[in-house]
């Protein structure tokens, strides 16, 4: 049995976060009453014409610049012709031969920490179709054209992804990017960010690509991973049992955990692409590109590098903290309030805070605990008012009550004991109460040191400063 190499290319569809549609003035808001957000242009009425939304162009150029791609000085909208009830004009306006964004690249971090550069073949603008509705209509099919004409950017990768995990890392990176750029809300449940995966396998060491299957419309990172894993296993098994992979479109069924055939290439449409005569070629000049470039935010890779350099974080921590702009902004707001503690801040944001948010299903920008609030807690750790252990209790109380760290420490009397005399008193009392253990320790049973630490902590309700306690015990126990 030979070893197989997986080859994956992704086509990601990201819905651009404009208020109106790509070629009409109708609103793009999600969840409206069917057909209430479709104007005559979206309905493809006789005589209507498309007019390009300038904001869509700005967003595409932002994306192109962010992936270091060439921005086409002239791109062309083309018609993709096919009949479907939710496609009102009988064609979709897309870009074919001349897309707005040409070759670029995106870097992903693999599991072993190495960085891999994935080529982006192109990114082009197009309009979304409407939706066919089947539920509750008996034998009939309903058409909701609210989504028709919603702007999409389709981001096509080179077939350079070599595992399901790489594909997920790439998709997550694109997801991070589009949200940094504020060009897509990234909402995968609502379909604002989804992908098609082209998957094939070939014997390790060969050049020639295997026959690929395209898995359509996957709308979660988990499904991308599972669908690709399933598909790879299916193809390998098929080939090894003497079969052949056929080029076809497949659908991921999350309930059954499998992909299944939708249509094969023989039944595929001939889309008869040709330049849309209703739209002039889109011309973009240098000045426009530079203006868009000047307005770009700091991008995740640059931000992560800065975090490593400015805050002394590990590459991994920097990557986690820059995964979203909100998270990174939150982290930096904490650091601004406790500037001496960037690592402590990183540990708390990635640890306690993330866990609490996760547990309650909240986003970082939920406002449940402000960056200043968390910084207030970290400041008390830094100045040794409380220990790290007690701080976790305080955090829980803050999370539950919304009160400040100082108020909670005061109210609950959690302030750390740093008075040497008080700690010595407590040690003396513990030593007096446990003569047998003391004798054993002095006879050489070093392990009992911990016992004394525990006893003193118990006596002080955990408030004794741990470092001081250690010092004093070392002095006092040997006698």
């Amino acid at each position, binding site marked *: 049995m030979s070893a197989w190499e997986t080859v994956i290319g992704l086509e990601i569809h990201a819905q651009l976060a404009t208020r109106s549609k790509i070629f009409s003035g109708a609103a793009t808001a999600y969840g409206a009453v069917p057909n209430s957000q479709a104007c005559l242009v979206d309905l493809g*009425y*006789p005589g209507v014409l498309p007019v390009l939304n300038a904001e869509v162009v700005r967003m595409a150029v932002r994306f192109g610049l962010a992936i270091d791609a060439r921005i086409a000085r002239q791109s062309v909208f083309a018609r993709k012709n096919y009949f479907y009830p939710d496609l009102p*004009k009988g064609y979709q306006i897309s870009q074919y031969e001349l897309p707005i964004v040409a070759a670029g690249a995106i870097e992903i971090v693999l599991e072993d920490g190495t960085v891999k550069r994935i080529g982006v073949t192109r990114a082009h603008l197009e309009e979304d179709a409407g939706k066919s509705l089947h539920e509750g209509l008996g034998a009939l099919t309903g058409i909701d054209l609210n989504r028709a004409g919603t702007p999409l950017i389709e981001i096509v990768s080179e077939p350079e992804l070599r595992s399901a995990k790489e594909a997920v890392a790439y998709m997550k990176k694109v997801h991070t990017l589009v949200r940094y750029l504020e060009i897509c809300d990234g909402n995968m449940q609502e379909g604002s960010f989804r992908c098609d995966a082209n998957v094939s396998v070939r014997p390790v060491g060969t050049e020639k690509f295997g026959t690929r299957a395209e898995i359509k419309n996957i709308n979660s990172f988990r499904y991308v991973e599972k669908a690709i894993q399933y598909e790879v296993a299916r193809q390998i098994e098929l080939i090894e049992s003497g079969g052949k992979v056929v080029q076809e479109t497949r659908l991921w069924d999350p309930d059954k955990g499998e992909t299944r055939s939708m249509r094969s290439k023989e039944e595929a449409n001939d889309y008869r692409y040709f330049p849309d005569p*209703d739209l002039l070629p889109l011309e973009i000049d240098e000045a426009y590109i530079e203006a868009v470039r000047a307005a770009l935010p700091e991008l995740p890779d640059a931000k992560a590098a800065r975090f490593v350099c400015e805050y002394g974080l590990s590459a991994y921590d920097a990557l986690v903290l820059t995964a979203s702009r909100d998270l990174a902004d939150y982290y930096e707001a904490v650091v601004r309030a406790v500037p001496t503690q960037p690592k402590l801040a990183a540990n708390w944001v990635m640890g306690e805070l993330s866990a609490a948010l996760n547990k309650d299903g909240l986003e970082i920008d939920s406002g449940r605990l402000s960056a200043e609030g968390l910084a207030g807690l970290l400041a008390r750790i830094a100045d040794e008012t409380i220990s790290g252990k007690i701080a976790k209790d305080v955090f829980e109380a803050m999370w539950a009550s919304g009160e400040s760290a100082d108020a909670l420490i005061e109210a609950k009397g959690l302030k750390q004991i740093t008075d040497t005399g008080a700690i010595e008193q407590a040690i003396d009392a513990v030593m007096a109460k446990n003569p047998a253990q003391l004798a054993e320790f002095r006879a050489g049973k070093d392990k009992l040191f911990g016992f004394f630490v525990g006893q003193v902590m118990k006596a002080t309700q955990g408030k004794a400063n741990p470092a001081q306690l250690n010092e004093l015990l070392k002095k006092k126990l040997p006698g």
Partner: protein
Amino acid sequence: MYRQTLTQLAAELRARRVSSVELVRAFLARIEASQSTLNAFVTVTAEQALAQAEAADRALGAGRGGPLEGVPFGHKDLFCTAGVRTTCGSRMLENFISPYDATVVSRLKAAGAVMLGKLNMDEFAMGSSNETSYFGPVRNPWNPALVPGGSSGGSAAAVAARLLPAATATDTGGSIRQPAAFCGVTGIKPTYGRVSRYGMIAFASSLDQGGVIAASAEDTARVLREMAGFDPRDSTSVDAPVPDYLAGLEQSLSGLKIGVLKEFFDTGLDPAYERCVREALAVFERLGASVREVSLPNIPLSVPAYYVVAPAECSSNLARYDGVRFGHRCAEARDLEDLYKRSRSEGFGAEVKRRIMTGTYVLSAGYYDAYYLKAQRVRRLITSDFARAFGEVDLLMGPTTPTPAFELGAKVADPITMYLNDIYTISANLAGLPAMSVPCGFAAGLPAGLQIIGPHFAEARLLNAAHRYQRETDWHLRIPEAYA
């Protein structure tokens, strides 16, 4: 009254020597009397027109009103009119009522024009004889056995028979100029992008252009001034100021350089027709213009290039007529495919189907390069031929058509012969140039048209030349006996 030009009628209305209601009544009566022979209208909107005329009279009485206030008018039935059905000459849209006005319609309404009805046309503007209309052929007012030309046959016939002083029309391959020539009236197809296409139901988007048919060049100038101009709803409309087309009409033609298109006289031109055109050229020489022969070597390629590009665009533009949202839907569809197949089979006529099939074929994988791309290259060659010619001359002239109007049914069985009727008109569409047809005499008793082609956005120059010619001749004032 009906014998007067639009210019004269507008002046009479403004001077209140006649009311709009009187005019509208008079023209409605002529429409009604002619309809059984000419069939120029698909829909007559008498009640609406009278209400609008009353409003126009009130405005005029108060010293208000637009430049065309109270003037009876008609729209080719592919301009969408809110509340009045827009059929495009097709069963597919037999009962289609547009919820909005085309930009051209709303501009002319704002200028005060009163719509009397919607004019018959070849189905979806595909045809050169007006025989492809679902609502029956239009007949030529000069001889009801003859076709009026197409696709704006209703507009040309209506103006020729003085059922209206003027009407909108559209021109994709000659659909304004050819019927204007056949019916002995004046028509102008402006530069591509000069008039908004919003609300003008598309045949071939890169070639379609709205224009006007009227009795005289001055009348067309007066209407075009109101129709033309940038429209933010049409990305292909050009954002450039519209000159006052009336201001330069009287300019002298002394020193004007006219090129005579050699290729238009080479083959198939009717000798009597040629004599009319040559005589017209002599009139221009008398007016101080110089005339010389110009060759555009790629012109013979225009018909094949056109019959690739136009069907290709049409096959895509007409895909929206699927029976789902509007238009004809077949009865008792069994499933989706059945709905598509039968709705479209029943809704479209033979010529439309022929062009959809041709267009689908030329865009198909494996044929696209050989047909569509090659046709686009030919288009660029023709455009540069014209650009070279306009480096030497100010205007190009020649016949509008190879022959005068032909008999109904004479060419329906042979689409190629029918297509060749557009041989002189198509090149201006391929190059996006403004072009006119002006009555220049009679060949064997039937009107002949002089075609004038200018550089992009030279409408004022075309109108100036045509107007000066019409001051020297009266061909444009001749009215067919039956309607005189």
